[in-house]
């Protein structure tokens, strides 16, 4: 049994796409004569009227002391505060009896970039960074170990200051 299909006959000016095309192209081409708002990323990463905020919270960076060792003392506060449970820390003791992290790993995939680790760090060692380019060929590469965290060079994030809420 066939289904009864009702055919609607519309007037030509309603059916033709010509009018809509011309209208659309007119809008497109009118943009050629307007001021540019885009940026040539990745060649260009900031514009005179736009830079990334220094409060941007991106992938982490571990700060180091003058000898190039990480400032981390393995106190365990960042894994404790981390809401995403993405920091793995195993403390150890070096030759001088100082506490230091034997293993310090951050899973950047799990991280929610809340910045609590930076806020809680008593040694100002771990920071979230002003950095957002994170392409890798391998998922495993997103678990940053201590060496990699120390080797990061991007600027670190400035945390929100309640006494200066707008960062002025």
């Amino acid at each position, binding site marked *: 049994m066939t289904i009864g299909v009702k055919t609607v006959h519309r007037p030509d000016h309603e059916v033709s796409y010509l009018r809509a095309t011309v209208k659309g192209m007119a809008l497109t081409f009118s943009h050629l004569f307007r001021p540019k708002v885009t940026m040539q990323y990745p060649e260009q990463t900031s514009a005179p009227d736009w830079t990334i905020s220094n409060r941007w919270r991106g992938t982490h960076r571990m700060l180091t002391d003058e000898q190039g060792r990480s400032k981390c*003392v*393995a*106190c*365990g*506060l960042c894994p*404790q505060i981390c809401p995403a449970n993405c920091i793995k820390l195993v*403390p*150890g*003791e070096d030759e001088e*009896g*100082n*506490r230091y992290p034997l293993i310090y790993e951050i899973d950047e995939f799990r991280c929610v970039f809340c910045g609590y680790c930076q806020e809680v760090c*008593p*040694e100002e060692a771990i920071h979230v960074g002003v950095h957002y380019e994170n392409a890798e060929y391998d998922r495993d590469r997103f678990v940053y170990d201590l060496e990699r965290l120390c080797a990061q060079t991007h600027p670190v994030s400035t945390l929100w200051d309640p006494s200066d809420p707008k960062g002025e």
Partner: protein
Amino acid sequence: MAEELVKLTIEGVELSVPKGTTILEAAKQAGVLIPHYCYHPALPVAGVCRMCLVEVEKTPKLQIACATTVVEGQVVKVFSDQSVKARESVLEFLLINHPLDCPICDQAGECELQDYVFQEGRARTRYSEFPKRFNPVEDFGPDVLYVPNRCILCTRCVRFMEHAAEEEVLNVSERGDRAFIGIHPDKRLDHPWAGNVVDLCPVGSLLSKDFLHRARAWELDKTASVCTGCSQGCNTNLDTRNNMVVRIQPRANTDVNRYFICDHGRLSHRWMNRGDRIEAPLLSHGHELTAVDWDHALDRAAQIIKGCSGKGVALVSPGASLEALWLVRKLFTGLGLTGAFRVERVKGESPLPGVPGLALREERAPNATGARLLGYTETFDEALKTVEDASLVVVLDDALTGVSAETLARVPNLIYCGTVLPDAARGARVILPLANVAEEDGTFVNRDRRVQRYFQARATPGMARPAWWVLSELLQGLDRGESAGVAGDVFDVIAKTEPAFAGLSYGALGAKGAVLPDQATAGARA
């Protein structure tokens, strides 16, 4: 004779306490914790830290609560402006030379200095331009490190060594701001009970080398347990982190160990985390062992037991719970049972002289008394000679050290229940994996016939289950009992059926345990 009571008011709470009580102890009863460092209920009062200063009405000066006894009609103000200000000043003095290295200090999180400074201390220092005193870390003994910088000179450790351990190794050397805890130049802090100074230290000045950097205090879960080191049955807390027991601390029980445990018990926690455990029930197929599920294993075990007649031998461990020992005995209903165990003995007790009746005992097992009360005898070697003639042999968590595989290979029906699988037990027809003491609930009976409960601190590995579950399921399969839902079910049946344990109940044992009545022991001995 009724004790003479004194009525007083602490922080607006009226209470009556026995004459001679200190204000600090009375305040505890009123629900007020007066901050203190040098005071410890197990040590003589020193009154050196000045932290417990409180205002007592009608006395001109503030009083130290730890050394002031209550007086009729006294009105104590713990949190008045004057006393809070005094304690704030004391804390400021303590912090002048304190390194504030909480991030790397093992005590952080359970530090009384941290707590009280947070509670009543100043927010900022007024001494920032002066350098802090610095002394290097000292090695005091086999398990104790001394970090002088963090020390607040409460002298608890000095008094413990003098009055409890009665071995005067520590003192306060130098004076004034140079003072530190000194150790006898020719001696080390190697008393068998010396580890207690680490617990007594209110700050992170005395540290356990065993626990150094292993965990932060806030990561630990504490579970009430009983020490398995000897027959004394000291009450302990098992501190676990990520399902690993990382530390054993004493749990206060004034009837057994007061506030202390010996170093032997303190350090014996590695075995609780061992990885080479039996993780599934195993059945023997020819010379092969096959992992099966519990239903199969228990069915097979029940079949084997049903088919047995004649003599039976149970080789049990005095480290097994009372419940497990009783259930094993019940497996042999209708068979002639020889129940035997062996105890590791180490010559010479190591007492803590300041606490009468407390020592590291020669008998290094927690439940030998319980095994004896249930009719097991210390005749392991004799019993082992008779296993060949036995129709059924059940081994309960004995490590079978020194037992040759050939001896057990000649046993027709061997059931091995245990935590790890010794080579000698590979010939068993059924192998049932059990939980160890940190992984199950249960009870031990110590040498003073005190029945004490211990609790599960970590998860069992694989399919291992507590002995009370395994054996009660097995007995249900034999129609000789009901399967137990919790360890207490088994205990309550023991209390009903065993005259020695009459009148006890698992729930009523509580955290402190209960001593078995005298006539019961007389009956058991007879």
